[in-house]
């Protein structure tokens, strides 16, 4: 007996604990809940039993939220590790995840993977890349036969047909889906790398059961999204579905249609933006024109005493020419397929020095105002008007207005 080792109680408990934690480690355990009790600390103490045996269990506060409140007699699936609580030598199960049986192992695996990838930094907000404001080239990874492809293309066609779409087919459910999705992501990355720039790629599928969406909760897919050299917009299922891919992607969209929507500008908005700028340009130039014209003409007349008439007339002609070009640009010049657009462009191309005013056209405006009159009804009888001719101007009063 001499060489038999004598343990202290503490040593024994510690040894037992070490053995249990290393030999059994983390396991899934199924059982019926007995006497659940939430302590003041927030930890939940309970026991699990089956027909022949039972084990004490604890779920510490601050882990991922409980999927259900534990109730006496509830059958649950728990994930955790077996250990010994050294102060009292009691053997117990420390549960990190508890869910009612029936919610499926799928969800538990999802939570576990999500936590692991989060800790690894795959979801870090600072690594999310922004999308360009006006994309010219968009990748789409989804099934060739699914509704998602149709939805995405319909929205892109309506909002932003200026972009070119590159479609990378992949199955989105079933056993081969995760590997195929990784391959497609790799191809999109290579494609972009080979000089045919892709601004970003939309990755997704339409709604389905939890099993249907499983490929988008696959760790390989999550890592392929993380490794993608171009930004990824995830578009998995319906609004309520959340996938691991959603967390890793640069941008998360609730549905495939929404992905196409939030990653592109609207053609109508951009058209309005252009017309708005054209309006601002015209207003600015008109203001400049009416502000300078009078003083220029007066100055030119005054310089007649110093310079040959020919030179002064040449400058006056130039002024008239500028006036003609400016007035040839009503806002309607930008309206689609309009006669006025073609006319305006013709005027622009004119190198012929025949100026509208010299040909007998004139500009009429209300005396003291800077903008030309376009409609007779703008000047009711009695209004004082000013007419700008090729040479000089007339001030008169309106006698009668005739509508055309």
């Amino acid at each position: 007996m001499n060489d038999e080792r004598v343990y202290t109680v503490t040593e024994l408990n510690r040894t037992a604990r070490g053995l249990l934690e290393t030999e059994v480690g983390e396991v899934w355990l199924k059982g019926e809940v007995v006497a659940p009790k939430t302590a003041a600390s927030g930890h939940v103490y309970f026991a699990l039993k089956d027909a022949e045996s039972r084990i004490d269990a604890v779920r510490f506060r601050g882990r991922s939220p409980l999927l259900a409140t534990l109730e006496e007699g509830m059958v649950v699936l728990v994930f955790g590790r077996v250990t010994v609580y050294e102060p009292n030598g009691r053997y117990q199960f420390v549960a990190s995840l508890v869910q009612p049986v029936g919610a499926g192992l799928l969800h538990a695996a999802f939570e576990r993977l999500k936590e692991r990838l989060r800790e690894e930094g795959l979801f870090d907000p600072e690594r999310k890349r922004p999308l360009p404001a006006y994309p010219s080239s968009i990748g789409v990874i989804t099934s060739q036969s699914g509704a998602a492809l149709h939805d995405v293309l319909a929205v892109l066609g309506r909002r932003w047909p200026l972009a070119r779409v590159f479609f990378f087919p992949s199955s989105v459910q079933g056993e081969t889906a995760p590997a195929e999705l990784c391959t497609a992501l790799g191809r999109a990355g290579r494609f972009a790398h080979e000089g045919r720039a892709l601004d970003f790629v939309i990755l997704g599928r339409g709604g389905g059961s939890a099993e249907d969406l499983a490929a988008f909760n696959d760790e390989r897919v999550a890592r392929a999204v993380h490794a993608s050299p171009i930004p990824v917009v995830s578009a998995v299922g319906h609004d309520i579905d959340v996938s691991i891919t959603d967390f890793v992607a640069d941008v998360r969209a609730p549905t495939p249609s929404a992905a196409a929507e939030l990653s592109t500008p609207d053609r109508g908005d951009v058209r309005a933006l252009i017309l708005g700028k054209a309006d601002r340009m015209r207003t600015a130039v008109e203001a400049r024109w009416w502000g300078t014209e009078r003083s220029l003409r007066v100055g030119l007349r005054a310089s007649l005493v110093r310079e040959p008439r020919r030179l002064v007339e040449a400058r006056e002609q130039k002024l008239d020419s500028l006036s003609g070009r400016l007035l040839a640009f009503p806002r309607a010049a930008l309206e689609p397929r309009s006669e006025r657009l073609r006319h305006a462009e013709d005027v622009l191309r004119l190198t012929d020095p025949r100026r509208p005013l010299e040909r007998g056209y004139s500009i009429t405006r209300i005396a003291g105002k800077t903008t030309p009159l376009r409609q007779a009804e703008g000047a009711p009888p009695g209004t004082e008007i000013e007419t700008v001719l090729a040479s000089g101007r007339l001030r008169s009063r309106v006698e009668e207005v005739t509508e055309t």
Partner: protein
Amino acid sequence: MKIEQALAKLEEITATLERGELPLDEAIRLFEEGVALASEAKRDLDAARLRIDRVIEDAKGALTAEPFDVS
């Protein structure tokens, strides 16, 4: 010109004109350039039709894009 560049150039022209510091004939020349640019950009916008290519990989691992008919 890509739409993004056209929009940036248009904004630059508009801002220059709004400052009102250019001689009149230069202002009008710039205005004409701006209007031409605006009509070109708008024409591109109106004429655009979505083009879709499917990218496939051959046995040697080369990627090719081929026109894809959605229907």
